C-alpha cells in the first residue's frame, strides 16, 4: 500500500492513541488538529484512510468529509470517530447513505475495533 493514514482530532492524546494503534499495523500516520489543517494536508498528501473527529474547533467533521468527497482522484475513505454521536444516530446514518463516510467508530472504542476497521478497509 505505502499510503499514509490521516488522523484528525483536536485532542493531542486522542491522536497519540490512534497513532499508536495504527502504527502497530506498520502503517504511516499523519496528524491534524483542525479541519483547516486537515484539508491542507489532504490536498498535499496521499492518504488511503482518514480517521476524522466529528467536532473540530473550526469546523464540523462531516464538513471535512464533504470536502474530501469532492476530491477528484484518489479519494481517501473516511472513518468518523466521535463521542458526540451514537451508533444509530440519524446524522451518522445519513452520512453513510450519502457515501461521505464509510464507517463510524464510537468513542471509547476497543483497539481491536479500530484494527478491524483498518483490515476491513484492506489497508
Amino acid at each position, binding site marked *: 500500500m505505502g499510503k499514509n493514514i490521516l488522523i484528525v482530532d483536536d485532542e493531542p492524546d*486522542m491522536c497519540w492513541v490512534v497513532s499508536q494503534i495504527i502504527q502497530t499495523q506498520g502503517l504511516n500516520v499523519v496528524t491534524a488538529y483542525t479541519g483547516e489543517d486537515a484539508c491542507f494536508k489532504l490536498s498535499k498528501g496521499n492518504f488511503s484512510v482518514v480517521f476524522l473527529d*466529528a*467536532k473540530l474547533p473550526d469546523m464540523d467533521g462531516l464538513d471535512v468529509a464533504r470536502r474530501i468527497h469532492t476530491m477528484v482522484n484518489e479519494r481517501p475513505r473516511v472513518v468518523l470517530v466521535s*463521542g*458526540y454521536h451514537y451508533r444509530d444516530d440519524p446524522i451518522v446514518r445519513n452520512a453513510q447513505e450519502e457515501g461521505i463516510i464509510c464507517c463510524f467508530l464510537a468513542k*471509547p472504542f476497543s483497539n481491536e475495533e479500530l484494527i478491524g476497521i483498518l483490515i476491513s478497509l484492506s489497508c
Partner: protein
Amino acid sequence: MSENPIKNSFQIQYEMLLNAIPSSVLMVDRKLQILSVNENFLIKSQRSKDTTVGRPLADVFPLVILQSTNIEESIRNVFHSGIAVKGQKMTYRAPGVPLRIYYYSILPIQSDQIILIMEDVTEQFRLSEEVRRVERHLASVVESASDIVLSTDIDGRILTWNSAAEKLSGLPTQDVYGRYFFDFCDANQKQMVEQIFQRMKTSNAAHTTEFNLLTPSNSGTILISWVFSPMKDDYSKTVGTVVVGRDLAERRKLELQLRQSQKLTALGVMAGGIAHEIRNPLAICSSAAQFLQENQISDDFQKECAKKIQTNIQKASAIIENLLRFARSSLDTEMIEVDLISVLKETIDLVTNQAKVQKIKIHLSLQRNSIVVSGVPGLLQQVFMNIFLNAINAMPTGGVLSVTVNTVEDRVIVRVIDTGVGIPAGELDKIFDPFHTSSPVGQGTGLGLSICYSIIRQHLGSIQAESRLGQGAAIIVTLPLL
C-alpha cells in the same frame, strides 16, 4: 304701652336673640314649672306656647326622658346646691321626629329660677360616630393584614405594631413601643435602616428594600421585603414613617424550586457537549489500558500509557466536578465575598464543550484579574450560565461569544456579546418576562432570563439587553463592587 321704652327695646332684642339661637332654652321655677321657653324648643318638641308655658316639666317632657335622665332630681339639686350641672347627654324622640341627641346644662339664676339649656348635637354625634367607625375599620384592616404594618415617629421610634408584626417577630407591641425600629434589624443592616429613616424626613417617595428582622424568641432572623413611606400631616409636613413588610420565606422557597428546575433545563442543553468531552478522555484511557495489557511493551511506553490514563481521568473528573458544582441544589443562599472573575471562568469552562460543538469561539477580556462582589456564587454562576447558553443557542451555525468585564466607579459591568440572530426590537423589553421564549415549543422554558433578572436584583444589580435583529445581542449585567 310700655313705661320704659329703652327697657322694652332691650327685652325685644333679647327675646329675638333667644329665639334665634339654635339651642332650646327653658326657665323653670322651684316647683319645676316652666316659666318661659324659646322658639327653638317649641319647634323641636312640636308644641305650642300655650301647652308649654305654665305647665310642670313632667307634662312637657315625655316620661321616658324624665326617668332616664332623672332631670327633675338634677334640677332640684341645682336649686339646693346652687351649683350648675353642665354637659349632660339626653336622647329625645318627639312623636314623628327622628331621634335627636342633646347636651343639656342646668344653670341657677337669681329669683329662684334655673335655666335649662339644651343643645342639639345629633349631627356632631353622628359625625364622631362615623369617624370612630372609620377608625375602627382602618384599625381592623391593619390588624387583619398578613403583612407587617408599623408606624414610627420621624426618628424611627415605633408607635404602632400590628398583629402580623407580633406574630412574625414574636415581639408583643408593649416590648417594641417607643423603641427604634432599627434595633430590631440585623446588626450589619442597622446603619442602612437608620439611613432610610433619615431619608424619609425629606423624601416624598417610598423606599423599597429587603433585610432581616430579628426574631428574638427563636434567636434567629427572617428575611422581609420592606416598603418605607413617609407619613404626612394635613399640612404635608412629614410626621413619621409607615413601614410595610412581607415575609419572603414562601416566595424564596418557590424561587428556589424554579431556579432548580431551570438549572436542570440548562443541564439538558449542555448534555451533548459534556458527552463529547467526557468520551474523549474515556477513549484515551480505554485504549491506553489496552496497550498496557499487551506483552512486550517497553518500560517507557508503559509509563507513557499510565501517565495518559491518569491525566485523562483527571480531565473527565474535572468536567464532572464542574457539572456537579452547577447542578447541586443551591440551598446555600448566603451572600459572601465572591471573585466574579473566577465565577465567570468556571462558567465558561462549563459551556466550552457546548460552544466547541457549535463552532463558537469564546473570548474573555478582562481589565483586572480579580473583582470582588458580594453575592451567592452558585446563583451568579446560574445567571452567567443562562446568558452564555442563550448566546450559544443564538449562534446555531457558529460565531463568537465575547465576555468583557469593566469596572466603572463603584460598579462592575459584564457584557456578554454574541454574533447570533439577535433579538427583534419588539421583543427586547419582554425577554426578562417569565415564560417569554423564542425557542420552539418544548425546547425552552422561557424562565432563564427572568430568573437571571430576579437573581441580579437580589444582588442589588441590574440586567439589560441590547440588540439588532440579525446583528447579535448583548446582555449587560451590572453589579455593585464590594
